[in-house]
């Protein structure tokens, strides 16, 4: 944790008001791109789950119909007593997931659908329209992502704020402990991203998002002709579809952790910072309240 004494915080260029230091945390460009990303990612996930519902099984390899069978399958069937249940089969292990996966209830009416209506766009099975939503917002996601990457380089947001410094790397162990104990940074340290945060953002921007787009392109029967057999580098078309699905859930996991960290580190302060740009720097413990 940062040891600098309150209220002398030389690194901050913000104004001091009521002994609380406020700083401009996010530039307008970052804020706009962040919220576009929120909308695009949410709609990509929900329309993607709707597309998945048309054939709720995942395989490894080129073909879906090998001796191996699917490694993931979500469906509905009758149990031994003839009652309908929803199931999820992962590597041959079956779990009953009625109410969430395979079989859900809406207004007291049961319906068989892999992911439930409230998670998908459109809400009921309508593959053609789900594809339209998906491919439209794919453009929003990709153009916004490209704009962000160009911006991070051009504005030096990347080198100044996102790349871990040498001392960041040295302090990585302490940062992990701090996160686990839900201890958040104060003072000058709170004006910068912490090292785990930096790594998470870099992995999302430069690994997960490019990978999920590439895996999406790999499912196109036309784009896989681009140069002979590139889809096989990732295990084949069905593997590409599996990776696309897995990366989608890794992104969901990132968002859940991201929102959790927000909730335990002053949700309104962070939310305001992402809307107005202004962030109130939390002070040393003992000085507050």
């Amino acid at each position, binding site marked *: 944790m940062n040891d600098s004494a309150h209220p002398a915080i030389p690194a901050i260029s913000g104004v001091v008001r009521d002994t609380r230091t406020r700083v401009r945390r996010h530039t307008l460009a970052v804020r706009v791109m962040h919220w576009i990303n929120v909308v695009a990612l949410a709609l990509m996930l929900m329309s993607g789950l709707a597309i998945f519902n048309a054939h709720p099984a995942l395989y490894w390899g080129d073909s879906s119909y090998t001796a191996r069978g699917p490694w993931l399958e979500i469906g509905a069937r009758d149990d031994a007593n003839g009652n309908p249940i929803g199931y999820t089969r992962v590597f041959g292990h079956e779990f009953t997931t009625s109410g969430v996966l395979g079989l859900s209830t809406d207004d007291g009416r049961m319906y068989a659908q892999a992911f439930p209506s409230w998670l998908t766009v459109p809400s009921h099975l309508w593959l053609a329209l789900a594809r339209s939503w998906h491919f439209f917002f794919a453009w929003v996601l990709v153009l916004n992502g490209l704009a962000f990457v160009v911006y991070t380089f051009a504005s030096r947001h990347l080198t100044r704020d996102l790349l871990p410094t040498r001392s960041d790397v040295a302090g990585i162990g302490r940062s992990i402990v701090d996160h686990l104990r839900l201890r958040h940074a104060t003072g000058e340290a709170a004006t910068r991203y912490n090292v785990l945060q930096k790594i998470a953002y870099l992995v999302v921007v430069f690994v997960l998002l490019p990978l999920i787009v590439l895996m999406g392109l790999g499912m196109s*029967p036309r784009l896989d002709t681009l140069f002979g057999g590139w889809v096989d580098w990732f295990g084949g078309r069905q593997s590409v579809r599996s990776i696309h699905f897995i990366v989608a859930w890794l992104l969901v996991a990132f968002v859940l952790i991201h929102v959790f960290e927000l909730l335990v580190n002053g949700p309104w302060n962070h939310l305001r910072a992402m809307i107005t740009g202004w962030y109130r720097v939390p002070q040393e413990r003992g000085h507050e309240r």
Partner: protein
Amino acid sequence: MNADDESAPTLAAPRGGASVAWGGAAPPAARRRFLGRVAASIAALSVGGCDRLSQTNWFPKMLGSAETLNGRLARAVTGHEAMAQEFPPADITPNFRSNGTAVPDNPRYAALAANGFRDYALEVTGLVAKPARFTLAELQSMPSRTQITRHDCVEGWSAIGQWQGARLSALLDVVQPARSARFVVFHCADPMEEGRTAPYYESIGMDDAYHVQTILAYALNGAPLPIKNGAPIRLRVERQLGYKHAKYVMRLELVESFVNIRGGQGGYWEDQGYQWYAGI
């Protein structure tokens, strides 16, 4: 689709015992109930909003414009001659899945099938210099191609099969399309709706029609094409999704535009909202 389907899912509020009020704050159960209702309203608003947008005329059109752009880009990036991936015999899916129609509900087709398709003839009409009919034997004696390719269904699954068939380009060379011909329409024997109505149909552009891998397949995995996979003739247009690969093809029609055919979108599934260009 019914707009009323998206009523807010009712979140069961936790029913604890008597709620204790602390220092004037809302009792935890009530607060949870309130937060639950807020969350449910937001979910219903956003998902319901998406469904309402889906039911307008303009919104799906706007979404679809991106798909048209995707198609153009994919074709531009890969080039006309790009070849779909081909596979070694070991990769062949043993029992090639039948999707859509498995047996056409059509008495005329049933009669042809009963006779081993000896009376079958593929008609070619429309914008051609020499309209013609080709028996199965004639098609089998035309320049052919054998290819092991992957069939990708729009639903998400794939299967690999070895297809043998007459090159569509060879057939077109015989009938000589007019300069104005821009699409080949495939009229099929399988009715898609109750009462033996709405036979399947599809269409492709001339770039795909003349592509090396575009064939009128009469054999699958070294045997005559089974009925469940489209006997006697099915289209293979390898760089597009499965619904373009018309089964039970009875007639080809060369046209300048398909807006006056059936729903006007160029195919049975296209008339239901699927994209005409299915390379994505």
